[in-house]
């Protein structure tokens, strides 16, 4: 193993203080290795999103240790974390989140502008390819606000993939999709893990979806219940 571990969470705890102290996450520890396809399930309010924000380095206010690709997250500056996120983590939110000022294609390309490794033409080519895989290449030049909820979600998935990250985290990526499109997303993720050796961590309420993944992590009341 060793080198193959992409994400390692060591007894992560988090509590909110308003107005009384509520422990949302309690000593959560697990690790994900390269190519793993894992899902997180749990009741509403069990802390799934909260965990995902911590694992994606956006939320640094927790106790415990988090290592991504062997890099310790604690003590890194905001700027370093942003680069880490940009390069190694793709993120799909619980609610589709696109920039309404841009077309679907530009939305997908934006993280690539920040990474600045590929030329604009290459980025555009890749972005178009991802949109095609998700069956929405016809919408590439539509403005984001003109898309339906499910279309937006797929654009967000394409965006998460653009920088060729090590791990993609999704918060309910199929929440707005019918079963046919949910299958498409599932299969794309599966291909990413199998063909490209990417790691996927998907929060979902969809038990069918969860059971098809190779590993299920269940959260209950802020604790890891069973694997």
């Amino acid at each position, binding site marked *: 193993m060793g080198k193959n571990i992409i994400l390692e969470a060591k007894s992560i705890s988090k509590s909110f203080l308003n107005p009384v102290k509520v422990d949302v996450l309690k000593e959560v520890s697990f690790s994900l290795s390269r190519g793993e396809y894992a899902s997180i399930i749990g009741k509403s309010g069990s802390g799934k999103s909260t965990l995902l924000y911590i694992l994606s380095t*956006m939320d640094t206010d927790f106790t415990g240790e988090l290592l991504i690709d062997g890099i310790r997250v604690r003590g890194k500056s905001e700027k370093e974390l*942003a680069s880490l*996120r*940009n390069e190694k983590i793709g993120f799909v939110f619980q609610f589709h*989140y696109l920039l309404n000022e841009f077309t679907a294609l530009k939305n997908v390309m934006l993280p690539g502008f920040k990474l600045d490794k590929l030329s604009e033409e290459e980025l555009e080519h890749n972005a178009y390819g991802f949109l095609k895989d998700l069956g929405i290449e016809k919408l590439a030049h539509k403005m984001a606000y003109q898309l339906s909820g499910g279309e937006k979600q797929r654009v967000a998935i394409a965006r998460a993939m653009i920088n060729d990250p090590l791990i993609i985290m999704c918060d309910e990526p199929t929440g707005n999709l019918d079963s046919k499109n949910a299958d498409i997303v599932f299969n794309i993720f599966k291909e990413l893990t199998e063909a490209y050796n990417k790691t996927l961590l998907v929060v979902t309420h969809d038990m069918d979806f969860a059971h098809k993944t190779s590993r299920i992590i269940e959260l209950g009341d802020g604790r890891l219940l069973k694997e």
Partner: protein
Amino acid sequence: MKVKHITEISGALMRARWKQTLVAAVGVTFSIAFFISLLGFMEGLNQLLDGIVLNRTPHVRLYNDILPSKVQPIELSEDFKDHYNFIQSVKPTNTRKEIYNAPQIIDKLSNDGRVLGVAPKVTAQVFYNLGNIDLNGIINGINPEKEAAYFSFNDYILGGNSLDLNNVSNSIILGQGAANTMRAKVGDIVTVTSTEGEQFSLKVIGFFQSGISEIDKVQSFASLSTTQKILGENNNYISDIQVKLKDLNQAPAIAREYEHFFKIDAEDIQTANAQFETGSGVRSIISYAVGVTLLIVSGFGIYNILNMLIYEKMDTIAILKATGFAGIDVKKIFISISLSIGIVGGFVGVLFGFLLSITIDAIPFDSPTMPAVTTYPIDYGIQYYSIAAIFALVTTFLAGWFPAKKASKVDPVIIIRGK
């Protein structure tokens, strides 16, 4: 992160709120345009008003002042060397107003490298005779060519040519005020009486209008020889030597130097017209204050609009940060928005300021007291344009800095969870 992509994002944000962006840019445009035209107009007026006096005033004037002797005989006496003395009611002796060796002094001055030109002058106290009434007057005997060359004399002559003073014998250019009182026309003969009581008939060949009515009521001009004749003096008699320098600022030093060298009184332009400098200075300060206020107000406009934009675009900022944009990138995006508003608004403002100046410059301004001026005065000094441009950039940068800093501190988790 490439600048191109930063500007692409900020451009999209501006286009999404193009009306507010336009309002902010128009605010900058207006303040810059008004700043430029206001200061240009004010400085034009300053130059015009100062010009009324300063252009006509010699930089250094050499003359013999009628003053009691600075050294009284008792001070020369050996016997009273260690004593104090008090003398009351000291009167000047009948010192002459004539400058000794005037031709030699003029010669010497003309060869001084710092001197642009020298014009001799004779002044004669007279009465203009008007029936039974005598009006006080002063006739200045001048060399019309030199007065015109160094002291813009011709700008103030109406209805005639100053050179005729030399061509027509016993001719006079009457002050407009005096002429009005006497109802004199060009070609008329007026009589003046010298202080010695002698009467002279002089032919009017034009009028003089300085814009200062106290002067126009009293002052008239004649040739040197005519004036010397009225005074009953020979043609070496000169009472004033007027010097125009190449550099006006050297006047006080040079005046002191001449005073010593020629043992004569010398007055520099700064001493003679101190109040004009002060007036111009105060006017400039006021117009700068107004102009800078305009620019600052437009800065607040940008600040407000950017703040609003940030509140509206919280989601956008959160997504950018979630997908790996750092706080500094977000800051750059918002500062580039504010700078583009400043640059575009400022550039158009500079253009409009210039156009506005041209417009003001074309508005007729018929002042009876300033014959040489036909339209409102404008100064097109490059300094107003550069100050306005620099100030526009600085204020828009600052107006963008604080909202941008706020945007860079947005916590994406709070925004994303808040949905």
